[in-house]
């Protein structure tokens, strides 16, 4: 290298010079002191603040995700519970309706039966009463007829219209 060969007699490029050493050490010392004491801390603080913020945000996001999942599970559980409850209410109502229906139908049957029996009893009593009345009427008429027959000795031919009239009278009386 031609340049390297051209070393000046008075200047050795490898040897340090006192002035340069003093100023470079001084500037490096100034850099270290000011950087460590003044300039670096705010940057480091900002970086750690950011890390902290990111960590907090991640934790918050994780927490929110966990809460959302819990809430979802809770809602699903509640929904399932509500479905079961609704089904139970429907089933209960159906059973109750069946019970009510059979009860009402049973009661209706009973009432019909009771009404029928009552009607029948009433009819029987009426018939008995009519029979009794008829019997008394017929007895009266028979007595009256007998007395009429006994009071007037009449021909058979006369009796017949008499009987007829009596019967017609009795018939009319029984109505």
């Amino acid at each position, binding site marked *: *290298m*031609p*340049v*390297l*060969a*051209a*070393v*000046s007699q*008075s*200047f050795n*490029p*490898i*040897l*340090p*010079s*006192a*002035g*340069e*050493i*003093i*100023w*470079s*050490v001084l*500037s*490096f010392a*100034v*850099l*270290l002191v*000011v*950087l*460590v004491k*003044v*300039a*670096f*801390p*705010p*940057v*480091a*603080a*900002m*970086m750690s*603040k*950011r890390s902290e*913020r990111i960590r907090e945000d991640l934790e918050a996001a994780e927490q929110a995700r966990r809460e959302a999942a819990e809430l979802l599970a809770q809602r699903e559980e509640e929904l399932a519970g509500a479905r079961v409850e609704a089904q139970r209410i429907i089933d209960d109502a159906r059973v109750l309706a069946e019970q009510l229906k059979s009860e009402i139908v049973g009661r209706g049957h009973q009432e019909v039966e009771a009404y029928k029996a009552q009607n029948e009893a009433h009819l029987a009593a009426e018939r008995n009463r009519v029979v009794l009345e008829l019997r008394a009427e017929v007895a009266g008429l028979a007595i009256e007829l007998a007395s009429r027959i006994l009071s007037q000795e009449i021909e058979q031919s006369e009796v017949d219209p008499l009987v007829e009239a009596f019967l017609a009278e009795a018939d009319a009386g029984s109505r």
Partner: protein
Amino acid sequence: MIVGGISFPPIAEVLNWKPIAFGGTSYAFNKIGLLTFLATAITLGLFMIAGRRARLVPRGVQNLVESSVDFITNTIVLDVIGQAGLAWVPWLTGLFFFILFNNLFEVIPFIQMPATARTSVTIPLALIVYVTFIAVGVKTQGARKYFRSALVPEGVPVALLLLLVPIELLSTFIVRPFALAVRLFGNMLAGHLLLVTFAVISEALFVKSIALVILPLPAAMLVALTGYEIFVAALQAFIFTILTAVYIGEALGGGH
């Protein structure tokens, strides 16, 4: 110096900067001193802006600074030292940015000089790291235990220790600072000289109209090397910082 009709500047012209202030004293302030202060100012400026306009969602400078801190925290500190090294993040961040900007000055127009191409910058940095990791080791483990763990590998036959202890002494306490300083200095100086060389060739060819036909080659090389030097600037800053983290991690009790 003239090679093939092209005048190359002597290396003193490329590296030896005249004093801007305090000329003639032992604390002469020249371009290198100015650049190191510029690196400090840029780094602090970026952090001040990032810290002052800190938003929850980072943008612009804040994004750049926070990405860098994140990178240093995860890729360098946590991977190399572990949780115990988190207290060293600001320190290592400062070291990384200081070296990075001093390297990047190599490709900044009108500056075009990496301050780290001077041993005046890399040797003090390496010595600061050297003193720091030894101090950390002594403070954390106690002097006896620290030097014992650093020099005497466990589970090695005593006979071998005669060989290993000098090697460990050499590698840990002598070669380390030297390697740190020379690696950074060598890489940046070589890159700087390469860029200067191709810039001089391009300029010379541009001036000599007859050579214009081959101009694209050195010019293209200059562009390609500039890109490559940006990569080297970041890589060397990363290597210096990660090695510092390794040494501090060992001193904190990581052991071999």
